[in-house]
């Protein structure tokens, strides 16, 4: 990795400019009726990177993730994924093109089994392909083997989070969006979730992560963006953000 600028304008770029940027949002705006959730946002994610979106509640982080997959109403700007414009595509087409979102609150299909949940995650796969991918995920998520036929709604919060991540991975996405994976989990379970993310990083999965736990997130991320009131307040290398801007923008807003 080469050096990253700490200035807002230049720091929004990943390590090797242009070469391996897979997701690029330009001037993105999201609004629910008259309420603007995201304004004029520029964001880039390069292959193999972990990028974290930080900010207080209501800063627009989740809206941003949902906008990428077409679930939030995008009112301006554009998004490209691997060079293709996905701004006007439907959610299902965006997901099929290789982006997978683990939604906030996990959103497992609670009255279906773990295996059925994963099967839907790999809906585009043929049965044999699915079995192979399902097996492949077992070493990362031992729970899949133990609880494959349990009803998803009966699992503990931490187990559900693992299943939700596994469900998003089974279709072999090239970009994983994680929305608050540690939310509502006990500290010891949070550790497990971050272990998984680190393992994913070793396996070169590209991740855009939204996280409240800024300190933990910045430890595993390459770069970060700090959002406040729908705009990017600061951006840059994770280590730099950790040191400085974070206190002003994030903690400042959170304390207000």
């Amino acid at each position, binding site marked *: 990795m080469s050096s990253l600028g700490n200035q807002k304008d230049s720091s929004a770029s990943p390590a090797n400019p242009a070469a391996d940027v897979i997701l690029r949002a330009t001037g993105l705006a999201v609004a629910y009726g008259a309420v603007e959730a995201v304004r004029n946002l520029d964001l880039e994610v390069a292959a193999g990177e972990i990028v974290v979106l930080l900010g207080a509640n209501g800063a627009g982080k989740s809206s941003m993730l949902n906008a990428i*997959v077409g*679930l939030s109403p995008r009112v301006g700007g554009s998004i490209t994924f691997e060079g293709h414009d996905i701004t006007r595509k*439907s*959610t*299902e087409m965006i*997901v*099929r093109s290789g982006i*997978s*979102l683990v*939604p906030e609150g996990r*959103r497992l*299909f*609670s*009255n*279906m089994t773990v295996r*059925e949940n994963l*099967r*839907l*995650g790999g*809906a*585009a796969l043929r049965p044999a392909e699915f079995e192979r991918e399902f097996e492949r995920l077992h070493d990362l998520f031992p729970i899949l083997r133990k609880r494959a036929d349990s009803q998803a709604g009966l699992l503990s919060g931490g187990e559900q989070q693992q299943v939700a991540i596994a*469900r998003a991975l089974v*279709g072999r996405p090239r970009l994983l969006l994680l929305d608050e994976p540690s939310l509502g989990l006990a500290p010891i379970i949070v550790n497990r979730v971050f272990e998984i993310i680190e393992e994913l990083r070793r396996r070169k999965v590209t991740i855009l992560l939204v996280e409240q736990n800024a300190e933990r997130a910045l430890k595993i991320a390459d770069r970060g963006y700090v959002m406040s009131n729908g705009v990017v307040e600061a951006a840059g290398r994770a280590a730099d953000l950790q040191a400085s801007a974070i206190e002003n923008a994030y903690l400042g807003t959170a304390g207000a």
Partner: protein
Amino acid sequence: MELMLQQFINAVSLGSIYALVALGVAIVFSILRLANFAHGELMTVAGYTLYATLLAGVHWFLAALAAIAASVIAALLLERLAYRRLRSANPLTLLITSFAVSVALQSLFLLFFGARPKGIELPAFVDAGFRIGQLRVQWLDVFIIVITGLIVLSLHLFLKKTVIGLALRSAADDFRTTRLMGIKANAVVVGAFMLSGALAGIAALFYFATVPNVVPSSGFEPMLKGFIACVIGGLGSLPAAVVGGFLLAFLEVGSDAILSNSLSPYLDAIVFGIAIILLRWRPGGLFGVRMTEDLRV
């Protein structure tokens, strides 16, 4: 004893028809929260198709297939022309629209076929039967019960084992997240209407085999029974629809057996009355399905 057994067979056979109607209604409701009152008219479409093809001398098997196909096509047209634009409308609007669609279709039937009942020329085997001791069993009842059993079983497997089936179930649970799995919303909705149409068509075959003439409002009664079956079971759940259908049929046949002759014309009123009492006891239906539409009190 024979009489009891006879009544039992009647109830299972009737319950099969109700269960099929209820399933068709429940599949669409579970996914779109749409109470499709025009489901009865899908059955009427099948009825008129059956009437026309049999009159033209088509073999009964082909006529049956044509009837089912007609229901499926009608269901898909309904989805495309009436319901698709209203997918995000409020529940009350949806409800009235489906009611209006039902009325419009009945009026169109009246326009094209007139009010006079059209007799359906059933093949002879419908009346055939066999005896076990004193018990006379109609092949038709055996047929209805076996086919319904097979349909319920294959529907179960379809919903358990295929990706489309899983998608139908997950969409009923959480449509938004289902789309996050890369599953096309339209595909799910169209799939639900196809299944619903096919179930309406098959239910219509059985219904018109027992009541062999069709009028513009033929579908109303079985539709209402199917819906009531769904409501007693728990609106939105497929197993509840099946159980509700059989329960309603057993209530109906049972009341008919117990009631004196002077009361039997009131059968429907009495059965609905019992259903209302059941609802007093469990407003969410026997299975207590969560009512996302309204408060549970």
